Each structure stands twice: as structure tokens, then as C-alpha cells.
């Protein structure tokens, strides 16, 4: 079984990871059970403690800087995302119910300057949830995205306008200079 070694972290980052994991697990225990007597709370502490000991380095890979700033900007990005989701579904409903079914699929590739895991996952999820595009694969070394688009207009919105990449780069404090027209196979 291929297991990569544990990430090398010093004690400060490990404590931060343990605290965040234990806090989130205990919060879920309280919210999902609804019982607040002593027995269930102690059972919650024990169960959360065991799970935290086994897996505390999976969720938080060390403490990156500007954590609070990134979280605030992420909350500010979510309403725009929800509006794009509604637009995407109206677009798909139009293409499905139209009697002539106007689709013209094509494959696209482009590069981004994002490197951390969480920002790549956010951009991939956003591309899947916006009108007309789904991510096929992501390479974390150079930030290459391969995307399948269902027609020419959503593909152009992703390649030429590049609004979504600019907004995600703004959330994670990365400068986006705007790449010139990348290659499409």
C-alpha cells in the first residue's frame, strides 16, 4: 500500500492541528446528539479524543499564515458562488429541454498560479458548479487544469474573461496577472 510519510511539522503546528480537529469533532457530536447530560458529554470527549489521536494530521497540514483573513474572504466569496450555481442549473435545464439540444463539447487546458491544496480544491469545485464546465484533472506542480466544456460560450467565459480564477486567487491572496490565451487541444 503506498503510504506517504507523515508531514514534517514542528510542535506548534501539530498542537494547532490537534486542537482544530478535536474542536470540530466535538462540535459535531454535540450538534448531532442533542443530549447534554454528563455521561454523553464524557463519551463524546473520549470518542473525539480517540479519533483525533489517529488522524490529526489529515485535515490541517500545518498552520499557514493569514488563516483568519482567508476564512473571512471565503465567506465573502460564497454568495457569488451560489448565484453562479443557480445560473448554471438554469443553463443546463435550457439545454436539456430544448428540442434541438444545442451542445458542442470541447476540451480545454489552462494554467494557474495557485499551489496550495485547499485553493486548488476550491477552484476545481467552483469550475464544476458553474455553467457548462467540469474539471477533468488537476496537476499540483504547475497548477494545470484540464476542463471539459459543453459549448463555446462557457469555455470562453473561462478562458478569455477569467473572472472565476481571478476571484479565487483574490480569496487566497495570490496575485493573478492574467495568462494570455492558453492552448486548447
Amino acid at each position: 500500500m503506498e503510504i506517504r510519510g507523515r508531514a514534517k511539522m514542528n510542535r506548534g503546528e501539530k498542537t494547532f492541528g490537534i486542537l482544530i480537529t478535536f474542536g470540530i469533532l466535538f462540535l459535531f457530536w454535540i450538534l448531532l446528539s442533542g443530549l447534554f447530560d454528563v455521561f454523553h458529554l464524557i463519551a463524546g470527549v473520549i470518542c473525539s479524543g480517540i479519533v483525533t489521536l489517529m488522524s490529526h494530521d489529515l485535515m490541517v497540514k500545518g498552520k499557514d499564515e493569514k488563516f483568519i483573513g482567508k476564512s473571512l474572504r471565503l465567506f465573502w466569496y460564497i454568495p457569488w458562488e451560489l448565484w453562479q450555481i443557480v445560473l448554471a442549473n438554469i443553463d443546463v435545464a435550457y439545454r436539456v429541454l430544448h428540442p434541438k439540444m444545442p451542445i458542442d463539447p470541447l476540451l480545454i487546458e489552462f494554467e494557474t498560479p495557485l499551489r496550495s491544496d485547499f485553493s486548488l480544491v476550491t477552484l476545481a469545485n467552483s469550475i464544476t458548479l458553474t455553467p457548462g464546465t467540469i474539471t477533468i484533472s488537476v496537476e499540483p506542480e504547475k497548477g494545470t487544469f484540464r476542463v471539459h466544456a459543453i459549448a463555446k460560450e462557457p469555455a470562453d467565459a473561462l478562458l478569455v474573461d477569467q473572472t472565476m480564477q481571478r476571484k479565487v486567487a483574490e480569496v487566497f491572496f495570490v496575485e493573478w496577472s492574467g495568462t494570455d490565451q492558453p492552448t486548447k487541444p
Partner: protein
Amino acid sequence: MVLVNGMVTLFLAGGLFFTLVGSIGLLRFPDFYTRLHATGKCDTLGTSLILIGLIIHHLFHYSGTPLVPVRLLFLVFFIFIANPAATHALMKAAYEVGVKPWKLGDERR
């Protein structure tokens, strides 16, 4: 009370419309990648709208237990993150195996 019932009916109707459109798209589209477009987006939003309508129904009719809507809200968040991730994983597996995408003018697969 009529306002709350009307809003719940609106959310349920919208959710059912998108769910049915997702299933019709599964049948109508000519290729695997385009079918994933239809279901990966419409199915997620349809189920989430149905669940949000039911959360509103619970908050107004059964206000004695306020912790049950938290469970349903967690279910909505989970579906928003899990369904696109599963769609992406399936698409990547199909691309690596070598399923060819459809171009305008081919026959249905």
C-alpha cells in the same frame, strides 16, 4: 401560516423540477461526459432545494426540537461538497481509461 406553506411548496416544486430535468438529461444526452454535466449540476441543486424547503417546514411546524434542522443543514453542505467531487472522480477515471469525448456529428454512444 399560509405564507410558510406557500414557501415550502415553492421550494419543493423547484427542487422537483431540477431533479426531473437531471434525469431527463441522463436519457437525452448522447455521450458519457455530457450526461455527467446534466446530473452533476442539476441533481445537486434539486436535492438541496428539497431539503431546504423541508428545513423551513420543520422550523415553523415543529419548533420544539431545534436541533433536527442542524442535521439537515449538515446534509445540504455535505451534498454540495460530495457530489461535484464524485462527478470529478468519475470523469477523471473515464479520461484516464480512454473514453473518447463526443463531437458534433458523431452518432450516440
